[in-house]
């Protein structure tokens, strides 16, 4: 399983290095979302700084859906879906590999968006460790859900419209917990303990990584 996961993650990241679709299309889209939020909320730094954590996670969520769409599209080429099933790869390994590749791509994207939030919205950092930890855990959960639902809708003609409808409501806890953790990390919201929020993100990621490992095999049987 782990060997196959490394193989698949390496393959997906290599494809991204070659095609640069996430870097050249999804990343600018994420930055654009931040700009559009600023237009919607007005030019004062006050409200923007207040909203910064939520806007960051919303931008990540929307860009994340696109990154997952891309990850599915890579396998969606004619014959490639059958190819993956015939490949002899362990389904759990495929799931973990594709999830890890999406996580790596999203972490790069989040680094840029975080810089954008700090620069454009004038937010300051209170606890960098908390920001990083929350991002890592939240992204892992997000990528797991995305890969799971992505594979679920892969063979379908309506997958572009179906994937966000399926994935985004399930990801609501990541948005809530990620935003709260970032409010504490940026010092923009009400003070409080960050423990429950980080714990929630970690539990979310663990639950869906485990579920994905278990159900990806049966899911691959149907195509």
């Amino acid at each position, binding site marked *: 399983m782990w060997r*196959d996961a490394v*193989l698949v993650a390496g*393959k997906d990241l*290599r*494809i991204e290095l*070659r*095609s640069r679709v996430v870097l050249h299309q999804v990343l600018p889209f994420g930055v654009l979302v931040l700009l559009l939020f600023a237009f919607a909320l007005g030019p004062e730094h006050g409200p923007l700084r207040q909203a910064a954590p939520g806007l960051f996670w919303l931008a990540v969520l929307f860009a994340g859906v696109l990154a997952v769409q891309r990850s599915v599209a*890579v396998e969606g*080429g*004619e*014959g*490639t*879906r*059958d*190819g*993956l*099933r*015939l*490949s*002899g*790869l362990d389904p759990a390994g495929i799931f973990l590999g594709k999830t890890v590749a999406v996580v790596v791509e999203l972490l790069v994207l989040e680094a840029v968006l975080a810089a954008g939030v700090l620069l454009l919205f004038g937010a300051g950092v209170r606890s960098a460790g908390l920001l990083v930890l929350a991002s890592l855990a939240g992204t892992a959960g997000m990528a797991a859900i995305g890969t799971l639902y992505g594979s679920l809708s892969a063979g379908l003609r309506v997958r572009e419209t179906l994937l966000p409808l399926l994935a985004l409501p399930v990801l609501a806890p990541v948005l809530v917990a990620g935003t709260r953790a970032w409010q504490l990390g940026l010092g923009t919201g009400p003070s409080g303990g960050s423990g429950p929020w980080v714990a929630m993100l970690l539990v979310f990621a663990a639950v869906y990584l485990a579920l994905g490992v278990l159900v990806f*095999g049966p899911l691959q*049987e149907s*195509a």
Partner: protein
Amino acid sequence: MAPVVLLRAAVATTGRFPALAGVDLELGQGEVVVLEGANGAGKTSVLRACAGLLPLSAGEATVLGHDLRRDAAAVRRAVGLLGHSPALYDDLTVAENLRFSLRAAGAPAAGRAELLGLLERTGLGGRVAATAAGRLSAGQRRRLGLAVVVGRAPMLWLLDEPHAGLDAEGRTLLEGVLAEALAAGASALVASHEPEVVVPLADRVLTMGGGRVVRSRRGGRRRVLAGGAHVA
């Protein structure tokens, strides 16, 4: 000896359409069976079913000793399918595609030297090996697909219109690697529209119609004797 492929009254549906409507088919070890028939007769569906890609809704099926209805995953690992459009990642190079496929399959021939040899052999060496697969011509894509099958060294070859898109040199290559695999004990199931090309390769030719095998006749292949000595 147990047959390599055994289908008994196999039924498979795609959507609500019975692509296979009760297929009986037996393929012995070392045998080459050609499937012919009109478009929609069920040739490709037989190959996909034997590859563990198309689940059966009724009937019995054994492929390479695995029960197709219980352990399709094992069947998928064991067979080599050359389909209409080989599974390739357009953004990766030819060499990278081949390496990924062979490593994924845990194929013995995944080392650097073997990869290069395989690419040379299939006419994809040199500059072509470093080309993105998306830039290949249809014939070159088929060759790459063939290279993957050769590298995986399956005991059952499932070839769907293997000659389509290949030039004369490619066809010679195809027949050469197939003959080698057969000599090594593999068997082959070939779907084709070109009887003049494939019938000479076949032990038996099965005509398909309406999702069933309707007729069987001898092919033109010079048999390998039971002892393993070539008659040809």
